[in-house]
Structures are given as structure tokens and as C-alpha cells.
């Protein structure tokens, strides 16, 4: 069964038509790269899927269930986890407390959750920083903390908003390796401007421009699609 389905998602902000009739399908175990120039509507689409915004029209279905009217926290409890373009850690909490904020998994105990949080921190290379205030971490660490924090809610669908932004090449590679290691059983949608580094880890690429999906397919198909070239580089002069 398809994990996430959006049908005809539409959202306006005053005179700006940010998302226009977007249809998107994501399957379990799939990494979908969502690309497009600035203002294409990628983050708005994320916000519509995660429940931060309500669509003007259209539907969001998670495993076939209509979740269009549900608030963000209910969607998170159903398994939609997200990270943010600009990291949003809880700076006055320790790194491990950041992971313990989320909804506990069914039947889990306090000590089990603490063990799980430490395991996740180890997975993202932050085990040594467990008791440090999140506000003292570097940007690269904060990006990894956000991924660990969202994994703590046991997501079935992971929305990653520019996970590589502001990272060094080595840190970006580490995050991408982490994303690939996570994809078994869950669907991942990743918005990213670093196309060169992120495209190889995608099973499928979707390109948006002016609120619409203009291209979708394998990374190779999308890379050579003339509509994508035009959206990024404009019309050829000759």
C-alpha cells in the first residue's frame, strides 16, 4: 500500500498561489527527493503534509486514511515526523531531553525510552553529548539531533527539510549515509538544494516550480528533463 498520498493539494497565501493541485505518492522504503528553485512551494507542501497548514482544497492520505483535517500533533502521533529548514532544537533542554519530548511508543517504560534515546543519539554520533544543553551544539550536531529527535517518535514517514543546509561536505555525507540507513520500512521525503550530493541517494525525484510538480521520475530522468533545466536555468537565448 502507498504510505503517503496527496491529491489535488492547493494552498494560497493572499495573492500567492504557493501550492497548485499537487499529487504525490510515497511508498515505504522509498527516498523521494523534492527539488525546485526558491519559492517553488516545497516547504509549503511539507507544511501541508505535516499539518502546520491546512490546504484550501485537496486531500492528504496516510496509509489510505484521510488525515487532511487533523492537527500537526495528531499527524505526528500517526507517524509523520519532520525536521525544519532552520533547526529548531529545544535549546534549554539537554540533548537527551530533546529526544524524550516526543510521544512515548506504545507500552514503553521511562527507562526503556531513555535507553532508546541513548541508542538513537549513538546512531547519529551524539552519544557523548547526551547531557549537554542543545543550545551549545554546533549546526552539524543540531541537524543530527533533529533527525534523532524525530526518529524517537517512531515515524513511518519522515519529512526532511533541507537536512544538508549549512553543513560541510563531510557532515553532509554523514547525514546522507544516515538517511540511507533509515529508509528500510519507512518513507522519506527530502527537500534539498544540494542536488549534486543528495540526488544519488534518492529512489525517485520530484521537481516543483511555481507551486506545481513539473517533473517526476528516476534521478536520471529528472536530471535530463528539459522542463527541469528550464526551471533552474531559464530559457535558452538561441
Amino acid at each position: 500500500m502507498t504510505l503517503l498520498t496527496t491529491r489535488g493539494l492547493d494552498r494560497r497565501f493572499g495573492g500567492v498561489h504557493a501550492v497548485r493541485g499537487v499529487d504525490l505518492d510515497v511508498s515505504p522504503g522509498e527516498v523521494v527527493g523534492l527539488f525546485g528553485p526558491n519559492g517553488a512551494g516545497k516547504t509549503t507542501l511539507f507544511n501541508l503534509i505535516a499539518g502546520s497548514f491546512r490546504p484550501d482544497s485537496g486531500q492528504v492520505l496516510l496509509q489510505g486514511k484521510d488525515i487532511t483535517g487533523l492537527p500537526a500533533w495528531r499527524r505526528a502521533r500517526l507517524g509523520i515526523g519532520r525536521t525544519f529548514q532552520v533547526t529548531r532544537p529545544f535549546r534549554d533542554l539537554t540533548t537527551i531531553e530533546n529526544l524524550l519530548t516526543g510521544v512515548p511508543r506504545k507500552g514503553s517504560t521511562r527507562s526503556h525510552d531513555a535507553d532508546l534515546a541513548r541508542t538513537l543519539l549513538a546512531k547519529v554520533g551524539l552519544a557523548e553529548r547526551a547531557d549537554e544543553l542543545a543550545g551549545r551544539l554546533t549546526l552539524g550536531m543540531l541537524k543530527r539531533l533533529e533527525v534523532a529527535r524525530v526518529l524517537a517518535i517512531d515515524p513511518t514517514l519522515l519529512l526532511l527539510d533541507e537536512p544538508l543546509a549549512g553543513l560541510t561536505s563531510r557532515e553532509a555525507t554523514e547525514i546522507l549515509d544516515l538517511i540511507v540507513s533509515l529508509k528500510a520500512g519507512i518513507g522519506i521525503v527530502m527537500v534539498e538544494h544540494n542536488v549534486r550530493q543528495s540526488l544519488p541517494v534518492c529512489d525517485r525525484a520530484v521537481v516543483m516550480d511555481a507551486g506545481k510538480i513539473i517533473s517526476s521520475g528516476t534521478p536520471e530522468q529528472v536530471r535530463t528533463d528539459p522542463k527541469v533545466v528550464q526551471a533552474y536555468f531559464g530559457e535558452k537565448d538561441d
Partner: protein
Amino acid sequence: MAASKPAFLANMLAPVVVAAIAALLPRFGASSYVQILVYYTAFYLALGQAWNLMSGMTGYVSFAHGALAGIGSYATVMAINAGWPLAAGILAGPIVALLASLIIGATSLRLRGTSFTFTTLFFQALALLIVRKLPATGGPGGLTLEEILPIWLPQLLMIALACAATLVVLFVRNSRNGVRLLAIKGDETAALSLGIASARLKLVIFCASAAIAGAAGAIHGLFTASLYPDVVFSVDISLIALAVPLIGGVATVFGPVLGALFFVGMTELLAVYLPSLHIVAIGVALLIVILFMPGGLLPFIASCLRLRGERPAVVKEVGP
């Protein structure tokens, strides 16, 4: 979440021991002046912890805690005057304050930042207006408690309440929901994205906080035995509820204890040495604490002594 098990047990024991010593002071021959100071320290501590529980933990700054305490005072005095048993009359205070907080919370907790703060300030003014107009509350002339109670009773009850309120903050601060409240304070949008039902959680903690403020008001009603609306619903009480944790350390368990001691001690000293200027001096002293120790006295002292445990929690007046 913040403390280990032995540290948590020690933290739990400390307020009980201090409260027991405070309660036994008359037996050690403490003067009635000292007992009154202890009473006011306990009253301000209970109010401060009530504010700390809601506003300190969530970052939603309330100016309604004075009004909630006032509602508790009126409910208790009216119930006892109506012939209710003493225990039931005292319980009426926190229950009515809790019901009032449901109304304020349901209407204002969806607002963030200063919008919420102004709504609570509006509620404070509205409560005074209503109490001044209602014949049942005695109008502008207020009410008098018709039953004469021994003075030690409200003194003991207030010490017990301050201790209980400190323990409530300790338990909440060390719980998963405490961490979630601090997450709401840090970034509510991020908290929602992790499945935290912030509206529900804020309402529950606001009700708990209101019940403590209402209980403090109920006991204070027994202590003063006379309620004048302009005094009971004065915004000063809300400011004290806010100042105590702000001075001592917002979102810390023991910061408000230090804040209440500092506030009462300073007020008394300045009233003696600067009788005509003591209110101004208190304001200046508060400004100094807020400007130079933004986390409050306790985190400042802890950082000077390089202690862990009581971590500074930066005050955030507005939501994200």
C-alpha cells in the same frame, strides 16, 4: 529527567524539613513578628510556585494569578460565612479558582506570547470589576469572615501549601510532561511536530497552577479575615507572583524559595531604612536582579559555585 534518584529524594525531603522547622518556630519562642514574616514568605512562595508551574514552565506569562488567588479568598470566605464546614470552605477556594482558570484557559491559551499575557491582564481587571459590582461579594466595601479562627491555623496551612506547591513543581519538572512543557516554552511549533498536544497540556497545567493560587488565596482570606476588592484584586499580587520566581530562578524548583525570602527580607529592610522610598527601591532592586542575573538568583549562585542540578532556564516572555 534532571535529577538522579538520590538527588531527587533529597530535593523532595528538603522542603518538608524546612516547612517542619518553619511550623515549629512558635515552639522555639519565635516572636509574632517573625511568624508573620514566615507567613508572608510562605504565601508569596505558594503564589510564586503557582506562577512558576504555568508561566515558568511554558513561557506563557500570566498576570491573572493575583485574580485567581482573590477568587480563592472570596470563595472560601463566602462559603464559611454561608455555614459550610471549615474544610469544605477552604476547598471551595481552589475549586472555584480552577473553574475560573478553565474559562480563562479555554479562551486564551490558543493565543501565544503577549496576546495571552494581555488576556490575563484583562481578566485581572474584569474580576475586580465584577466583585465590586456584585452584592453577594459585598460590593466595594468587601466582606468580613464571620467566624473567628486561631491565627496559627492559616499560618500552618500556608506553610504546608508552600511546601506542597514546591513538591508539585519538583515532580512536574522531573516528569516527561515537565520536559514537554519546557519544549513548548522553547519552540511550540517544533513541540507540536513531535506529537505534543500543547493546547491540552497547557490547560491542564494552568488549572493545576490556578488551584494552587486559589488555595493560597483561600488561606490568606482566613488570615486577613477582611476582603477589600481593591486590595485583594490589586495587580500587585500578580506582580509578586511573577517577581518571586523571576528573582529566584524561573522554571527551577528552589529558585522561588530564594525569591520569596529575598522579596520579603528586602521589603522589610527597605520599609525600615527607606520608609518613603521603599517601593521605588524594590523596583530598582528587581531591575538589578533581572538585568544582571537574567536566569535568577539561584542559577546565578549555582553558576558561581559551578553547581549542576539547578540549570538556568532563560526567561522567554513570548512564544515562538
